[in-house]
């Protein structure tokens, strides 16, 4: 077995992941590119487990398992954030994330935030032909009415 083959594959995958993170503007695609990078690391770990002798046997494979767990957690939280972003801004483009505004946990922006959803929402609902049951503005409405 020539270890250089999986190593080079992992390096290229990592580079593609970096490229994807930087290139993509859709947050879901960015997350996919992050997955590519994680897998490249996993591949290196697994390959190193076979090529390099460690004090503890199969440390690389254990690490790979841990990374997979981390990736699962990361994807869960990351997707929750993405969905929340979509609910607030009706968009998942990362370069439209407002960093210069006040944080949402201050009183005034909190009051404005849902109001912004309710004011932005109707246009989105009216224009969006594919508005499903999980449309955030619509879920926000009944809460307000309650």
């Amino acid at each position, binding site marked *: *077995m*020539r*270890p*250089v083959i*999986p*190593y*080079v*594959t992992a*390096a*290229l*995958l*990592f*580079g*593609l*992941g*970096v*490229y*994807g993170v930087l*290139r993509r503007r859709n947050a*879901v*695609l960015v997350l996919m590119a992050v997955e*590519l990078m994680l*897998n490249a690391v*996993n*591949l290196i770990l*697994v390959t190193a*487990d*076979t*090529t390099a002798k460690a004090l*503890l*046997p*199969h440390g690389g*494979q*254990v690490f*790979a*398992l*841990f990374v*997979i*767990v981390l990736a*699962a*957690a990361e*994807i*869960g*939280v990351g*997707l*929750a954030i*993405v*969905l*929340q972003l*979509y*609910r607030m801004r009706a968009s998942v*483009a990362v370069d439209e994330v407002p960093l210069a505004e006040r944080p949402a946990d201050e*009183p005034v922006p909190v*009051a404005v935030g849902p*109001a912004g959803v*309710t004011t932005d929402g109707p246009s989105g609902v009216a224009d969006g032909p594919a508005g499903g049951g999980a449309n955030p503005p619509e879920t926000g*409405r009944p809460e*307000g*009415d*309650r």
Partner: protein
Amino acid sequence: MTGVDVLLVALGAVAVGSAVLVVATKHLVRAGLYLVVCLGALAGMYLVLSAELVAWVQVLIYVGAVVVLLLFAVMLTRAPIGASDDLDRPGWPAALIGGGVGLGLAALLVDAYRWTKVELPEAGTAERIGEQVFGSWVLPFEVLSVLLLSALVGAIVLSRPDIGRSPGRQSAVDGVDSDGAGRGRSR
């Protein structure tokens, strides 16, 4: 060049090729599907590299769960079916950095291993990995379980904006919302 090498090259080519498509395609859903191919090819490589447990976990968690979650997200954000034009940003810095990282790492590793040959160990079993995980690595394992739990809770809190707020703020939100609803009714 042995059969193992051929197999690794072939699977690697599939993984890299599908990864290129993941970061280059204009279809959101297809990107998810290419990711499945890429991750599957990687699982094959793990098998070849005699890491069976990792390979199956890869298939189960990554191909099974993560990608499905990603596809859910694609659908929940009401991504259009078909090609989209606004997925990408100007590409040259990304290409420069990504290419630099990828090729740099590749050059480093090529320089480190050249064309050396390594004997593959015998195919590992889940039992030996389990011994390690629950023996030497049991503390990180437990910490990871706590991490997973907190990630679970965090994801729930993030996706439910109505929990975790103070009552006063809740009423303020309600007031604003009822105002909006009032406007809606009057309209």
